[in-house]
């Protein structure tokens, strides 16, 4: 009974994933007249020694990840602690906070393009109206700020989703622990530090892993808002791979970069899980 699913999966997922490893050792410009050339590991040595844009994209991707992981996890945990109980207000706010998740990345990207518009956008119009003219920057058009502007959008987009995961986790924490802490005179902060945080660590591991993966898959958002620019300041690995393959016609080289992408994502999620689990075990 599992056969039809497995057949499709094998042909269109496992086989391409394996053949991608083979493509990663080749050089080919996609021209049907020419034959792919076997180059061994030269694609990999080239990208780490000679390709500044690749190194920059890797760095951008890490910065984007760190920013989004810190703020998205922080906000979603904060709001989840506020909205753990099921009342009419909390359910309404949770539904509202979750709302951006149902929109497409392209829609979200276009909405924020409009908000960030340096001349007509709501953000700069508000800053000007409030007298902060010097803060009304060219958010997406300046290579110093564009990556941060994208990170804000990504956090806006997915905080509600992560909050819902946290709420499910926090609702599992036995109420008695909080009651005991209150009897002992623990403040809200102490309750958070000694009950919520350690009890929610497994959930944090999940949220951090999801968020990390999302920041490495943020193709749609980056493509819509900045397309990697200005000056490659928002180029992340997936957008670079797309450009190298479909505009640079370097199929083998782009395939090698997807291998690096997978290795990076897998090692990061593995490392995070280990750290958070060790932390959990120690307490």
């Amino acid at each position: 009974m599992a056969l039809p699913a497995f057949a499709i999966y094998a042909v269109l997922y496992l086989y391409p994933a394996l053949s991608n490893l083979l493509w990663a050792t080749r050089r080919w410009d996609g021209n049907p007249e020419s034959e792919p050339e076997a180059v061994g590991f030269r694609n990999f040595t080239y990208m780490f020694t000679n390709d500044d844009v690749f190194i920059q994209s890797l760095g951008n991707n890490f910065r984007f990840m760190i920013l989004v992981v810190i703020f998205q996890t922080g906000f979603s945990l904060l709001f989840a602690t506020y909205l753990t109980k099921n009342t009419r207000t909390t359910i309404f706010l949770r539904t509202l906070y979750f709302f951006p998740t149902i929109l497409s990345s392209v829609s979200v990207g276009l909405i924020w393009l409009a908000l960030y518009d340096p001349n007509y956008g709501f953000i700069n119009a508000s800053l000007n109206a409030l007298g902060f003219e010097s803060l009304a920057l060219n958010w997406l058009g300046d290579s110093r700020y564009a990556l941060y502007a994208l990170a804000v959008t990504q956090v806006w987009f997915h905080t509600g989703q992560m909050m819902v995961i946290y709420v499910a986790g926090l609702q599992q924490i036995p109420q008695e622990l909080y009651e005991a802490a209150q009897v002992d005179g623990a403040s809200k902060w102490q309750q958070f530090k000694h009950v919520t945080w350690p009890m929610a660590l497994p959930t944090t591991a999940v949220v951090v892993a999801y968020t990390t993966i999302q920041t490495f898959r943020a193709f749609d958002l980056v493509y819509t808002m900045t397309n990697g620019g200005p000056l490659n300041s928002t180029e992340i690995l997936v957008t670079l791979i797309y450009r190298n393959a479909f505009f640079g016609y370097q199929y083998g080289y782009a395939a090698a970069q997807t291998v690096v992408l997978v290795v990076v994502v897998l090692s990061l999620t593995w490392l995070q899980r280990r750290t958070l689990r060790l932390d959990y075990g120690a307490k």
Partner: protein
Amino acid sequence: MIYKTIKGFLLSVFALAIIIPCSIVIMGAFKTDLKIISEPLALPESWNFDNFKRLVDSGSVYTPAKNSLIVAFFSVFITLFLASLAAFAIARLITVTGKVLFVLFSVGLAIPGQVNIIPIYLLFVDLGLTNSLTGLVLVNIALTLPISIFIMSAFFRDLPKEMFEVAGIDGAGPWRVYRSIALPLSRPAIGATGIFLFVICWNDLLYPLMLITREDKKTLPLTLIDFRGEYLTEYSMIFTAIVVASLPMIIMYIAFQRSFIAGLTQGAVKG
């Protein structure tokens, strides 16, 4: 007291951060460009559908909407059918093969789907599946099968064993058990997974961008991207297009809130 004030303040700030952009867009769909820029937060003077008419008249909405609907519908329907069968087999007919299959499908969960863009593209060029809605449906199925099987097999495993055993004693074959017991019982899981799959297929940009170049095969996200270049800062058109492209999701979200949140949370990795 201070705690409550801070709490209320932070909750309102984030609520406004969502309400303000969304209302600028929704109200903008009923305004002129000038009004969007000069009074972004004001209610439109009249709720007329001029922008919508202009959008429809431009001829760039009907075909992509139809294509998106076809692709999303067939992708979701076929994936749900194949995944529920496979998940049922893996979870209930526990054999060595079942375990091996589960491990193989889990590999797909660990590898991000975007790894496959180059080999899939080259394979689809060879098979003549570029510029084809069938091609998009096939990609969607392959990409979403692992996560769907993962979610559904967890659900099937939690169903009480006894029901399946009794049915087996009564002489029902695996097909019969799947159809008459597993499927009806798993309606909530299938619903949640279906919604999550629909959102992914409806919103996907990367694969259509790669595989579709012909106008008559474009899906909504591709058309929206074209709009970005075509209308630049003509925000009335862009906002109207966003509203049109998001409307099915918004209606479904209001109608099936619970399944929506459940589905999109389980599938957060892929969403």
